[in-house]
C-alpha cells in the first residue's frame, strides 16, 4: 500500500520503526496541549489599545472602519455607507441572530435579504466571530449563521464586529473558537480587501474578492 510505502521510507530515513508508544503519547500530549510560541508584544494591550491598533492596521491595509455606540446604529451606518459609495440600497445579510435582530425596520428603503450571496449581489453584511489587533485581521468561521460566500462574492464586504471581541493575537481568537467546539468547515482570517500585485508588482485592490472592506466596530456586549 502506498501509505505504508511512504511511511516506511520516512522511517528508514529516520533510522527507526514506528514510534514507540511512550513517544507517541508524548507527541499526542503536545498536540492536545497545543503550546503557544512567542506572541508578538505589540497586540498585548488593554481593550481600548486593541481597538485602536486593530483600526490602525485595517486602515493601513486599505480597509475602512466605523465606530458605533450600539447595534441599533448599524442600519443607519449601512445606509450612510451605501449612499457615500453610490451603491444601490440593497444588501445580503448573513443569517446570524445578532444581525437578524438589527432594527432595519427604521430603514424601509433598504432592500434586505438574509442568506447566501449570489453573483448579482453587490453588498454583503457579515458578522465577525473575532478581530485580531496584532494585524487588523478578522476571524470569519463558516457555519449556518455565517455563509463563506458572503466574505467573498460581493464587491463590498461590510462586517459587524463587537468591540470586546477584538483579541490581542490569533492564538486568543483560536482559543475562543476551540471553546465553541473546534474547527468548523472553514475559518477565514481576513486582513483588508482583496488585492493583487501580479501586474508589474503594483498593488491593485479588488482582484477576485471584495474591492472594499468596511468594518463597523460596535461597543457593548458581544
Amino acid at each position, binding site marked *: *500500500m502506498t501509505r505504508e510505502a511512504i511511511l516506511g521510507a520516512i522511517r528508514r530515513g529516520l533510522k527507526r520503526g514506528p514510534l514507540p508508544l511512550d513517544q507517541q503519547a508524548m507527541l499526542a500530549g503536545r498536540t492536545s496541549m497545543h503550546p503557544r*510560541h512567542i506572541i*508578538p508584544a505589540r497586540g498585548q494591550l488593554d481593550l481600548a489599545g486593541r481597538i485602536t491598533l486593530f483600526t490602525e492596521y485595517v486602515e493601513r491595509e486599505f480597509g475602512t472602519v466605523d465606530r458605533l455606540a450600539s447595534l441599533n446604529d448599524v442600519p443607519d451606518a449601512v445606509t450612510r455607507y451605501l449612499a457615500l459609495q453610490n451603491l444601490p440600497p440593497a444588501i445580503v445579510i448573513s443569517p446570524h441572530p445578532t444581525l437578524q435582530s438589527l432594527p432595519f425596520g427604521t430603514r424601509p428603503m433598504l432592500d434586505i435579504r438574509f442568506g447566501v450571496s449570489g*453573483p448579482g449581489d453587490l453588498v454583503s453584511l457579515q458578522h465577525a466571530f473575532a478581530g485580531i489587533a496584532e494585524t487588523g485581521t478578522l476571524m470569519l468561521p463558516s457555519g449556518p449563521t455565517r455563509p463563506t460566500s458572503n466574505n*467573498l462574492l460581493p464587491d463590498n464586504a461590510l462586517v459587524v464586529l463587537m468591540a470586546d471581541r477584538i483579541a490581542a493575537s*490569533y492564538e486568543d481568537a483560536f482559543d475562543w473558537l476551540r471553546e465553541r467546539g473546534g474547527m468548523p468547515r472553514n475559518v*477565514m482570517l481576513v486582513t483588508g480587501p482583496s488585492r493583487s500585485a501580479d501586474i*508589474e508588482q503594483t498593488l491593485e485592490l479588488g482582484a*477576485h474578492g471584495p474591492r472594499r472592506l468596511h468594518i463597523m466596530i460596535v461597543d457593548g456586549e458581544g
Partner: protein
Amino acid sequence: MLETSSAFKENATGAMADAGLQKALARAKPQFAKKRLAAVDKLPEFEELRDVAKGIKNHAIAHLDYYLETYAAAVERAGGHVHWCSTADDARAAVLRICRDAGARTVTKGKSMVTEEIALNDYLEANGVTPVETDLGEYILQLRHEPPSHIIGPAFHLNREDWEETFRKYHTDLPVDRIFHERRDILTEARAKLREKFLTADVGITGANFLIAETGSSVIVTNEGNGDLTQTLPRVHVVVTGIEKVVPTIEDTLALLRVLARSATGQDMSVYTTFSTGGRRVGDPDGPEDYHVVLLDNGRSGMVGTQFQDMLRCIRCAACMNHCPVYGAVGGHAYGSTYPGPMGAVLTPMLVGIENAALLPNASTFCGKCESVCPVKIPLPNLMRHWREREFERHFSPPGMRYGLGFWAFFAKRPALYRLGTRAASLALSFFGRKRGFFAKLPLAGGWTGSKNFPAPEGDTFFAQYAARRRAT
C-alpha cells in the same frame, strides 16, 4: 513542466539578452528586499520567530510519519478523504479519478506549485477535463502557455504591454480597440472573465501552505481571494500538496504564518489565510460537499535522514530567490525547473536527479544572502555545495572544469608552491599591466574579460606584504 535545467547556460545567456525580462527584473528586484526589510523592522520578535519556525519544522520532520498518520486520521474524522501518492503519476491519476467521480468538466485552480511539479494541467486536459487557473498571474501564463517564473509571483517576468497584448489576443469577445487606461482595467477584465469560471466549475483544486495534524485542516494563503472562491463554490474541493507540509498544531501554524508573509511579500499577514477542514457540515449554507487531499511524496521521503533533510523545512516564501543575485540577473525560466532560485537549485536535483540538474547548484555565487533571509534558516549554500560534491564525485562536471580543479588542488595542497606561483603570476600581471592598470584580454580568462576589464594587481601579494610587515615590527 518540461525540465530544461541541463540547458541552464544557454537559457541564462538568452535571459540576459531579453530586454523585456531585464526590464521586469530591474523593476521587481529592489522592491522585494525593501518590503521584506520594512516588515521585519516592525516586528522586534522576528529573529526569534525564525528560530521558532525552524524548530517547529524540524520537530515535524523528525516525527513526520506520526504527524502524517495523525493528520490523515483527523481529515477522515472531519469527513474528508486522503489519497497517498508516491509519484507524480499516482497524484495525477488520483486527481483525475476524483474529477471523473464528480462528473467534472471544468475545474478551477488556486495557485499551487505542487500541481506545476506534477504537470497536472496538461494531464487533465488530455483526459477531457478543462483546468482554469484563477490566480491572476497563473491565469495569463495559462493563456500564454508559459510556466511560472517565480513561486509566488508567477508572471513577474511580464510587463504591462504583455498583459494587454495577451488579453486582446485571447478575450476575443471583447472589442479589439478597447483601451486599458491603467493596470486596474487589466485586473477588472480578468476578474469578470474568471467570475464566470468560479461559478460554473465542478471541482476546485488548491494547494496547501500547511496541513495541521491536530485538526486535519489544510491552510492556504492568498491575496486575491481566488483560492477561497476556488474551494468554496464548486461541489468538490481537492487539495494537492506535499507530505512535508504537515505541522502538529494550530499554534505551530500561527508561528509559521508570522514569518511567511513577511518573508514573502513584506506583508504582516496576507489578505486571506484560510483553514479548511473537511466538506460541508450539517446546516452549512455553502461550501463544497466533498473534500479530498492528494498527499504527494515524489522524492520527499528520500530526503529524510540525508544531508538534504533541512530542505523539507521550506515554506515556499520565495525570499531566497527575491534576494539572489543569480535569480535577479536571469529570472526564473532560465533554471528550466518548476522551482527556481536557491531553493530550486537544492530541490530540483532531488526531484529530477542530479544528472539532469547538475548546473543548478552551480548557479550560485555563494554570497549567502539566501540563507540569511530564509525564515526557517535552511543552509542553502551548504546544500548546494553538497550537490556540487556529489556531481563531482559522479563525474557529471565537464572535463575542463575537472582538470582545472585538479590543477588548482595540486598547488592548494602545497602552500609554499602555491604562494610562489601566485606571487610570480601576480608580479607578472603587475609588470605587464603597469601602463594601463588593467587588461582588456587575458589568456584563459575570456569568461572575465569578455564582459569587463581585469584590473592589474598593484604591489605585492597579501602574504608577501603580511610577511614583510611582521618582519618590520
